[in-house]
């Protein structure tokens, strides 16, 4: 399965052509994919914000943003610019250091998690061996940032919001990790690239969603809860807590929270598509298409074609899930805090444990279908 574009190799060879050593070439290469992914994440946020405005408008039979660019596509950029030039306020009785560190601690783990999101066989920043486990570990840092900003604001609504956020993410992390564990059990690897390759055998039929339907639903619910999207947006429930831990924030610090929550949403959608919907895989295997066209799989044309199909498929699947998340946000009411914790601990946790057990049993019984 080791084919596909290897841009790093080609780039390094290109630089070595100018007489640079391989170490210098590597150092010049390193920031490029990171910058690219950062830009991709921010552009993804802009698109999602626009989608959110447009879809919410459609759900409420409004028009939504209309004048800033065609169909209002420039509206999110206007929002961002506004936040950039707004005054940076730290409340007089707030704790300045923690107040500033909070939003950073929320945003950085989310961006770091993009390290493991693959858009193709070699199209990811780093194929680390612990892959998906790194994401689970990083996402567990976020509650500290939320508690920090909730505490530092010196505001009871902020503190309550921060406490709720921490309780929520601790409760939903466990079923989330258990449903990922079922996938890892089938793949025999934690690496996201291996997880996608394991699903690429027979196109749409071999996607994990058919083998892990329960895991898929549990993971999606937990991912929404981790992103604090509406059925579970208790930490910032407007009617009860003003805006939760964000209440005292303005300007760029608020923008960091805003960016963090949307990047997290896109990241969760990407991970659902990687874990359950075949990642960069096309519904019909590319090998079949290549055979049909009588082209060798390693031909340059086919390689560029597969790489672009891979990126398009990953983004398309992720945005379908983002669309569902936005529709859910504008059509479902909020759950209460006790319902939220009940759902997490008394329903999702036993179900995901049972799912893990059944997956392990099925793996022993039918190793050819559930990974040997």
């Amino acid at each position, binding site marked *: 399965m080791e084919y596909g574009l290897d841009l790093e190799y080609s780039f390094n060879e290109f630089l070595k052509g100018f007489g640079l050593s391989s*170490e210098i070439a590597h*150092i010049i290469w390193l920031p490029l994919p990171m910058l690219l992914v950062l830009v991709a994440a921010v552009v993804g946020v802009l698109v999602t914000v626009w989608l959110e405005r447009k879809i919410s408008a459609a759900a409420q039979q409004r028009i939504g943003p209309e004048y800033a660019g065609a169909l209002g596509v420039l509206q999110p950029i206007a929002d961002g610019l506004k936040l950039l030039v707004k005054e940076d306020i730290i409340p007089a009785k707030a704790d300045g250091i*923690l107040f500033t560190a909070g939003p950073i601690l929320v945003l950085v783990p989310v961006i770091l998690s993009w390290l493991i999101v693959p858009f193709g066989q070699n199209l990811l920043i780093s194929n*680390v*061996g*612990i892959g998906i*486990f*790194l994401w*689970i*570990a*990083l996402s*567990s*840092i976020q*509650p*500290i940032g939320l*508690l*920090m900003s*909730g*505490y530092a604001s010196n505001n*009871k609504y902020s*503190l309550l919001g*921060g*406490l709720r956020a*921490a*309780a929520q993410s*601790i409760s939903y*992390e466990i079923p989330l990790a258990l449903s990922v564990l079922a996938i890892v059990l089938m793949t025999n690897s*934690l690496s996201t690239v291996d997880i996608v390759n394991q699903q690429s055998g027979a196109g749409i039929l071999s996607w994990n969603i058919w083998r892990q339907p329960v895991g898929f639903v549990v993971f999606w619910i937990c991912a929404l809860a981790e992103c604090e999207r509406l059925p579970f947006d208790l930490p910032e429930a407007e009617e009860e807590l003003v805006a939760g831990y964000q209440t005292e924030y303005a300007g760029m610090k608020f923008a960091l929270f805003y960016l963090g929550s949307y990047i997290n949403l896109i990241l969760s959608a990407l991970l659902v598509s990687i874990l359950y919907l075949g990642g960069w895989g096309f519904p019909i295997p590319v090998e079949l298409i290549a055979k049909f066209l009588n082209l060798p799989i390693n031909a340059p044309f086919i390689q560029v074609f597969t790489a672009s199909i891979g990126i398009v498929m990953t983004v398309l699947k992720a945005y379908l899930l983002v669309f569902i998340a936005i529709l859910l946000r504008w059509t479902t009411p909020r759950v209460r805090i006790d319902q939220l914790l009940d759902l997490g601990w008394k329903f999702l946790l036993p179900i995901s444990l049972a799912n893990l057990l059944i997956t392990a049993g099925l793996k022993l019984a039918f190793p050819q279908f559930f990974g040997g």
Partner: protein
Amino acid sequence: MSIAITTQFICFTVLSLVVIIGALGVVLLESIVYSAFLLGGVFMSVAGLYLLLNASFVAAAQVLVYVGAVNVLIIFAIMLVNKKEDLKPINDIKSRRVISTSICLTLLSLLIRVDLTNVWSLSSPQNAIGEESTIRIGEHLFSDYLLPFEVASVLLLMAMIGAIVLARRDVMSKDISTGLPVDQELIEKSSEPLLTNKN
């Protein structure tokens, strides 16, 4: 020095400094909230040291367990009972500080002695398992370390049952901290209101 070794050296220096200064801050700072957050920073830097040692699984587990669970619970507990009141002054605080400092220094000298006298046998880089370590840890947990692993889970179960007994006071007719009879209708009601007289 090659670039890789220089990077490694810089990372090691920064991480060790953060660990030492952070740990001192955890102990010496007056504010318990700052101590708790610094503790999280120390745990993160230890995870960074594990990463430098090529133990990525251990590093991620360190972040998940110590930062994501232990530290979050510590901060959570501090914030739930964060009453703005001055603690009662302790009479012999100076002698207590002297005693605890001397005990800590003794322990430190013991550790330094162990470090200096022990012959550390390092495996050569060729034998490093790197990414294989996840599999190797799993194998050990289910073979020669099976008993400690299972005993640890029993210990956790005991702690969990204890926590549930403490939290659900309807199990007992008397409040164990105050000795007053428990109001059975309001099980969630704490014996003291949590968020009063905040200012």
